[in-house]
């Protein structure tokens, strides 16, 4: 992922309210701004602003339907964040196997 898009992603998720909105969309699927506002403790324009930031980061997409925009989550960009812990876990698992093998051979 390019540095710029990574920065947008982290800026978008640095705000707890935006994380909560994003989490709602991930858990419960597509929703309108009105539905999201009903669950947030902020005004509808504030929710809309957060959605714009999430959309710029590629974390949310919208689908116009008459007078309403329906928003849904795009969690794929998050994979880059989650991936390092998965990668390191695999790395250390393999090292532990090698360590156990060495311990078996030591003092023989």
């Amino acid at each position, binding site marked *: 992922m390019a540095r710029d898009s990574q920065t947008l992603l982290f800026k978008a998720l*640095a705000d707890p309210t935006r*994380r909560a909105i994003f989490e709602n969309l991930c858990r419960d699927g597509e929703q309108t701004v009105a539905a999201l506002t009903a669950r947030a403790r902020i005004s509808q324009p504030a929710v809309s602003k957060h959605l714009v930031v999430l959309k710029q980061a590629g974390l949310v997409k919208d689908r116009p339907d008459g007078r309403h925009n329906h928003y849904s989550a795009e*969690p794929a960009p998050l994979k880059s964040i*989650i991936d390092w*812990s998965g990668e390191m*876990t695999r790395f250390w698992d393999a090292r*532990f196997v090698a360590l*156990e093998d*060495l311990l078996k051979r030591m003092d023989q």
Partner: protein
Amino acid sequence: MNSMSVDTLSVVVERDLPYPPEKIWRALTQPHLIEEWLMKGDFQPEMGHRFSLRADWGSVNCEVRAIEPGKALSYTWDTKDLRSIVTWTLFPSETGTRLRMEQTGFKPEQQPYYRGAHAGWPKFLDAMERVLRERN
């Protein structure tokens, strides 16, 4: 979990090994043994000692941060795109030793955002990991 894991990502790997802590300590601290299971490097069991570990995929810059012979060892683990700390802890058990490795850290570009966001991150990432797994 120690207090660092509140605002960093961490990876924990733990195993029960049928050997006494002294033997495992040797494998963790003697360069010719480290080379056999981890990477090639010039480790010395001294506070502040800087060393690098090398493999065909690249190298890791390290500095010893804590050392308690037979019990605990901690060093920084910095690569091109990761700043982290690796901590080894050895707990004697009835059958030998429980060996625990914990790595905590950041990708450098992630750091300022994690710092600003505090405790919400690990919980959020756990939740997201579950969501992503369920979607796949």
